[in-house]
């Protein structure tokens, strides 16, 4: 256990340094949320006038949705880093040392979560700049960041697990492209759930992205903290299940060599 913690920390440090040394990635991952917020925020500004929308300002509504969407996409790509470790022989070098096997996955997941925390804070700040106002202030914002990090942990574990099973960038890219947009649009990221067709609302109930969007929005704008807590618990459970999947995938990978 002691080695698990210290190995995870050392490997996490490596991933963080790598991220900071290729700062262009931080920029690239923020371009999209800027476009979503600035462009869609303007384009669909009047959507809130639709009966039943219940929120007065679309930017207030959109910002938590974009936070979650960015967390989802960013962490879904997390397996690419592990693939490059596999391809460049870094994984073999690690596995020939006594390093805690669990730490290799844990460090990747924590790195994804940490990245989500930074990105979410920046996007919330950007939302404020663009005129959003969050009724629940700092506490609400912190809850959003936490919910985003939980979602990011889950999807980064899925992504790393898939990377270990598929071992090809092409496979990972197609899976993400195939599921990415549907999971986003089968949620209330852009539009209030009351305005969704019934079948979409039914599917959205089982969509972790939607759990996170609803929790995040309620945390900044609403007052139903029990709902936030229940969604956050679901997301924590989701992250654990995904973590188990990634760990099993790692065992399968090592056996297959």
């Amino acid at each position: 256990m002691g080695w698990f913690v210290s190995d995870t920390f050392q490997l996490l440090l490596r991933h963080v340094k790598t991220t900071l040394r290729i700062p262009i990635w931080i920029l690239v991952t923020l371009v999209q949320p800027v476009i979503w917020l600035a462009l869609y925020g303007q384009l669909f500004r009047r959507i809130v006038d639709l009966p039943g929308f219940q929120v007065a300002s679309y930017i207030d509504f959109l910002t938590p949705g974009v936070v979650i969407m960015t967390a989802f996409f960013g962490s879904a790509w997390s397996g690419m880093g592990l693939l490059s470790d596999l391809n460049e022989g870094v994984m073999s070098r690690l596995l020939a040392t006594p390093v805690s096997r669990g730490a290799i996955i844990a460090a990747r997941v924590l790195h994804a979560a940490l990245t989500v925390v930074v990105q979410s804070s920046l996007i919330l700040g950007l939302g404020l700049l663009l005129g959003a106002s969050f009724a629940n202030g700092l506490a609400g914002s912190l809850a959003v960041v936490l919910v985003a990090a939980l979602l990011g942990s889950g999807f980064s574990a899925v992504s790393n697990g898939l990377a270990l099973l598929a071992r090809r960038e092409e496979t990972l890219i197609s899976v993400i492209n195939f599921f990415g947009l549907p999971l986003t649009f089968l949620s209330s990221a852009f539009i209030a759930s009351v305005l969704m067709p019934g079948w979409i609302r039914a599917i959205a109930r089982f969509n972790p992205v939607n759990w996170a969007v609803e929790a995040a929005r309620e945390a900044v704008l609403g007052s139903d903290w029990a709902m936030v807590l229940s969604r956050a618990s679901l997301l924590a459970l989701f992250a654990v299940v995904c973590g188990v999947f990634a760990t099993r995938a790692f065992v399968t990978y090592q056996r297959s060599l």
Partner: protein
Amino acid sequence: MRASDTIVVEDLTKRYRGGVQALAGISFTVREGEIYGLLGPNGAGKSTTVRILATLTRPDSGRAVVAGHDVLREPGQVRRKIGYVAQASGVDRWATGRENLLLQGHLERMPGRELRRRVDELLEQLGLQDAADRLVNTYSGGMRRRLDIAMGLVHRPAVLFLDEPTTGLDPESRALLWADLQRLRAEGSVTILLTTHYLEEADRLCDRLAIIDHGRVIVEGTPAGLKAELRGDRVTLEVEGNASQAVRALDGLPGVLEAVPNGTEVIARVSEGATAIPLLVTALERAGVAVSAVTLSRPSLDDVYLHYTGHRYRGEGEPEEASLAAGAARRA
């Protein structure tokens, strides 16, 4: 198994998913403190053997013991005692040389203070102290390779595995690396198993070596011993026309120990080169085979390989020594 055997490999077999038989019962032993070479062409099973010994791959059957521990039953103990330098570098390009070494040392369970001292020492030994705090991405191929080896040595392992250590290096970097490895052997603190497809490298560095092909050991011995077992000289005859017809003409001639076709050449091992050449050429011309070039050489590992496998050694990137020599003879 003797106490001085650091690596014992017994009848390892391995078939990959997809049906490739990588190992077909490979066996050898490596003694403490020596440099042992696995020499063979690509696909012979060298890397698979090393990966099994480094606990990265499981064999289908057979047994392997490294530094006193069975690789299947006690992989954790084995990992503490080995350094593994793979063919693919495995260093982190987006970290500095020092950071790579420090992380590796942490994962190898070295205490912090000793680790920092050891890293400084290694950087100096391998001439990397000026580049220590630069990103590995800016290193030359030779520097990166030296860092790889430093990573394998950081925790002072009992056994170091080097998989194709000089593949892709320019001749100067290769010579530097050979000097480093020779110094390591002189220190005598680490047993080295290296794989190579360069005959010259095996000849220069290895105390003993095994020639392997199709997943098994074909012959094992010291480089000098293997060459000494082949009596006589090598005569390479470049012929115009059918090489196998030429071989038939040479078989059974007095003084000819062996004749093997090789493309447009015939390689003959003869007891006395200088007197045999006129006889060989006359015999060939009598059989209607024109000879365009002749070279005479002492047996090399190439001949050892030829003798035991029946075909010429074709390592990737190996200079075509024989044809260069033939060209020189033609010009002369």
